[in-house]
């Protein structure tokens, strides 16, 4: 067991060192955070300037995370994709596999490190976006406080959703190996499936759409979840199931194929 633990620690330290020693990774995250905050402010301003006598265009809780959902998911998913594809492109993956011959350990370590980084960034961003939005809309519509029912859960779920997207990216990178293909696959899961479902005829758009990541994410970040979709708790399971299935497929694929 100790040997196993040591091996897991080795693999994690390896992947973490690689992740944080490439400058572009850090700058991608910093840029993602700055742009997210900017978009959030713009959306909050538009919400605050809506006439007070009409119902607000958005649920104030959902509005806090619109910038987040529309934008942040993209760079973080791509970052997840690059965790594998950058190594396949340079050939470094073979060095990685000679250092850690167990493919499963490499995948697990990459997933944990990337997932944890995305979770931390996601949670920090979630809290910041929420406070920022509520401060801006407070004067007009009365902002929510952190302790308002439903808010802590939503904030927790938003961070989780970002980690889930990053992990879908990691799995797609391991399976597709080429950056362009992997990004296309990951974004299909993260964005496009939901978009496709929205164009289906009436009962089917929500009936299928509720199992996609964006619909599930919507359910966990609104004060009044929509009827006809999944409950927030089940939606969290959906958010977790996509990366879990993708990672299992990636593990099988990594074991089967030559490096």
């Amino acid at each position, binding site marked *: 067991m100790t*040997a196993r633990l*040591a*091996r*897991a*620690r*080795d*693999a*994690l*330290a*390896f992947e*973490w*060192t*690689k992740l*944080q*020693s*490439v400058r*572009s990774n850090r700058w991608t995250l910093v840029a993602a955070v700055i742009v997210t905050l900017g978009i959030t402010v713009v959306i909050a301003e538009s919400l605050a300037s809506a006439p007070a006598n009409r119902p607000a265009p958005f649920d104030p809780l959902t509005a806090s995370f619109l910038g987040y959902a529309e934008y942040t998911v993209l760079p973080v998913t791509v970052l997840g994709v690059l965790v594998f594809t*950058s*190594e396949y492109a*340079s*050939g*470094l993956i*073979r*060095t990685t*596999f*000679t*250092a850690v*011959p167990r493919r*499963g350990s490499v*995948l*697990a370590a990459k997933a*944990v*490190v990337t*997932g*944890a980084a995305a979770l931390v960034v996601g949670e920090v961003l979630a809290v910041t976006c929420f406070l920022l939005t509520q401060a801006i809309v407070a004067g007009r519509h009365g902002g929510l406080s952190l302790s308002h*029912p*439903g*808010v802590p*859960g*939503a904030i*927790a*779920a938003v961070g*989780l959703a970002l980690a*889930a997207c990053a992990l879908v990216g990691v799995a797609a990178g391991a399976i597709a190996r080429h950056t362009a293909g992997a990004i296309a696959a990951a974004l299909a899961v993260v964005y496009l499936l939901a978009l496709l479902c929205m164009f289906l005829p009436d009962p089917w758009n929500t009936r299928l759409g509720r199992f996609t990541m964006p619909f599930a994410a919507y359910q966990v970040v609104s004060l009044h979840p929509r009827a006809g979709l999944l*409950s*927030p*708790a*089940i*939606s*969290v*399971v959906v*958010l*977790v*199931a996509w*990366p*879990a299935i993708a*990672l*299992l497929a990636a593990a099988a694929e990594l074991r089967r194929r*030559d*490096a």
Partner: protein
Amino acid sequence: MSSAVAIPLLVVVVGFVAGCLTAVVRDGPPRYLPKWAWALVICAAVPWGGVAYLAFGRTRRPGIPLETLAPVQPHDPGGPPAVTLAPPPLAHRRPSAGPVAIEVSGLTKRYGAVIAVDGLSFAVQPGKVTGFLGPNGAGKTTTMRVILGLDSPTGGTALIAGKRYRDIIRPLHEIGSLLDATAVHRGRTAWFHLLALARSNGIGQQRVHEVLRMTGLEPAAGRRVGEFSLGMTQRLGIAAALLADPAVLLLDEPVNGLDLEGVRWIRQLLTHLAAEGRTVLVSSHLMSEMAMIADHLIIIGRGRLLADTPAAEFVSRARRDVLVKSPRAAELAALATARGATAGPDDSGGLAITGMDAPGIGELAAAHGIAVHELVPRHASLEDAYLDLTSGSADYHFEPAEGVALR
């Protein structure tokens, strides 16, 4: 439980807990949260603390002394400053497990319809430099990739000290390898590239400094690999191979792209490492390179073993003949053939006789009154011997351009 299962499971547990939290928080104040749910929340929170510790607690700034970060001279083409060949202390090096360090038996590797390696068997002994030779496309790299567990063989086995590569714990301590030195992330500095590899096998930072010093890369440690010359990148690959002070080294074409100084450096290094009792397997498609360093040769062509022999023996076994020029060459040829030798026309217009030495031919000619104008004993070079051996097995043959003899 394998880690590939453990991670998704962990994610599911965390997700479930987050779901509980969402539902509970939405449906009422937290005092209705049952005790077991809190216990679950705490249990799920603990591993993330460990992950955070690993991620953020262990990383310190690189311990490179400031002066080593000074930029290398602008026009440095990769020629290193004085290179220390003195090896690091080997106190912690484990002796190799037996007389055979690498054992390949019945190895076959098929890619679709192409057979890259076809029933290859050989063993590599410690204490000498073993040259792994073959024309381009002979299957050298494939064999090395199978030894390193990167490709799985279609048939047969490749063992290192009796174990499959994938079963070795912390494999860098047993076998250091260099397959493709340019397979490095261009945006990472040399220091971090080596540091990451060191951490993957529980090797300390001190050792990273040591290999950087050994390979003469210390002044460039803080530079990104994308700025390196080919020679420096090759040195970085060697540094990575030596990182854990392994008893076995496996190098694929290590001198490719190196300048003369670099080539000489590698030669000395490999001889030195073998003299310390390590196992060194070096592949090359250049016989001339191997002639300088290899003690033992393993030669393959089209995925099959052509020769597995001490280098000296290979040379002595090489083709020898005598070039004879005589106005009555045909008569001489008949006489030599009658005595069991073989004779045939030579490119230069003379007669090439194999199976008799020069004095014997001279005596024979004199006894029959045949004038001899030239009598030259010839030794094939190692290069010729190699080409003789592999000419039937090269995948791609060159058509000599007009007037240019390739051999």
